[in-house]
């Protein structure tokens, strides 16, 4: 009973106070709103512990049961513990290991600058290859919708290069809106903007509805179980 009613009560009180403090930022709501935000930030820090623990549990299980790809899990675990060890070495600096990230040449600095940064950038950069291959195979004018998408993508891609400007620079000023960079800009700030605004308003209404359900205790799935 308490495991459900207490969290629901906390959610109700915090939710109502935060809503009220937004519209009435005076005492006591202003201070309460600030305090609740600080509590939230402190609790959010614990997510790192939770995330780390979860990562170890899942990958240990994968390695232990020799599930497919267990080798990658092994690498993840080794990387995690080595980084954690070096990071904690910042405290007291044992065995001469300098775990301070801002210390040039320290083991943590090397891990960050020489492994983490290039590996992350490489993963992201690989997208360029897949985007090119996927564009060649998927961007076909198969029907009206696909054709509109294709034309928009074409204009945006060209508009983001010097060629877009060069190709249509000959157009007189009275037809400047037809220059490819201007067309690209128009696509971004007119049809894209309208669509994005519509989506955002829809999402916001959904968030308000869900938040109200949470505050009023109607939506209880976040408590786990079936919500009963």
């Amino acid at each position: 009973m308490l495991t459900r009613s207490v969290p629901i009560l906390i959610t109700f009180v915090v939710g109502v106070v935060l809503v009220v403090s937004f519209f009435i930022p005076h005492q006591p709501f202003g201070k309460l709103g600030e305090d609740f935000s600080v509590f939230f930030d402190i609790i959010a820090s614990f997510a790192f512990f939770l995330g780390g623990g979860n990562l170890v549990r899942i990958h240990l299980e994968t390695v232990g049961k020799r599930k497919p790809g267990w080798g990658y899990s092994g690498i993840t675990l080794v990387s995690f513990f080595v980084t954690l060890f070096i990071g904690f070495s910042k405290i007291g600096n044992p065995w001469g290991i300098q775990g301070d990230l801002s210390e040039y040449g320290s083991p943590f600095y090397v891990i960050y600058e020489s492994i983490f940064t290039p590996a992350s950038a490489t993963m992201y950069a690989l997208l360029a290859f897949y985007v090119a291959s996927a564009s060649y195979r998927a961007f076909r004018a198969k029907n009206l919708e696909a054709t509109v998408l294709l034309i928009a993508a074409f204009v945006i891609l060209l508009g983001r290069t010097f060629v877009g400007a060069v190709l249509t620079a000959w157009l007189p000023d009275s037809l400047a809106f037809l220059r490819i960079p201007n067309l690209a800009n128009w696509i971004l700030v007119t049809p894209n903007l309208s669509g994005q605004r519509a989506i955002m308003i829809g999402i916001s209404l959904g968030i308000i509805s869900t938040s109200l359900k949470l505050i009023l205790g109607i939506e209880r799935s976040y408590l786990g179980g079936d919500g009963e």
Partner: protein
Amino acid sequence: MAKKTFYDRVRDIDRRLIFLFIALSVAIPLIFHLYFPETPTPMTQAVFDKIEHLPAGSRILMDFSYDPASMPEIEPMATAWVRHCLLKKHKIYAIALWPVGPQLASDTFNAAVNFLRNLDPERRIVYGEDYVNLGFKSGAQGVINVLLTNLGTLYSTDINGANIADIPMMNGVVNLKSFDLIASISAGTPGTKELIQFGSVPAGVPLVAGTTSVFAPLLYPYYPAQMLGILGGLKSAAEYDALLFRKIKPQLQARLRLAPKLLQDEIAQLTGDRSLDPAAKRKLVAEKTAALRAVEKADPATLGDRRLMDLAGPVLGYTQKGISRMGPQAVAHLVIVLFIIIGNITYFIDKRRGRR
């Protein structure tokens, strides 16, 4: 089995060949330093103008919420902003809503300060007086909510553990309303969107943003009412680089005229330095000697923009990452456009032949 015609080969092109074209389209412009002219869009110009017209000493809260994965696209705009703000003598307060943001902020500050000291050796740029790195705090919207009311509640020290009460530029900084501008550099969530919703709008502080080209369309709905301008992707970063280059070009030329003497002094100093690793020393001396030869041959007053940028790099540490990275991106875009055209031509030919 019938022999494949040229058309069949083009239609069923091996994706590894596409990968090769993309690799070449990126590598060749990088190797040959291909730069293209940039014309600023109104959004980029709006961001530049805002920073340019703020009075000296204005407080700017700069959020570094990105990671190494998005760094190649976002770092150029971060570098350009930090340079511009410090040039204008604004005070920069760096925060991060992403865990790896503070390190990226430190790197950006170091590079920008190094260049500005080379550009104007008499200019004094001091950590804690001109810029400060307040580090990362978890909590996303929660952090912004607290910043809105009381910054000191969350940020009691800077990234180095120094008490903020001991940092001169923190004097008088109470909450978000203490700032003249919020500059959000983000690659996703939490980032610009949250700063607008929970920070800049309730505090009534103007905001400018810089983000990846993928994320930029999601932020356009906030322009221009809640967001004065936005740098979307590498293209905008290159445009900003070009604007900043125009501004500092006379200073660059003046400084490069003095470069031969400065480089000679540096080479002499390096040669006599016994604390350096011999291999590293040789490399540094070779770089400086090459730069010296290049400077001696050129007259900065008559050099074209591209040559001037190339020269200012090794001599003054002036990197134009936006402009230099835009070359590979532009060519890669063109290659993708070309493949889309080929793909559609083969599609229509096949359709006419009744194959699909």
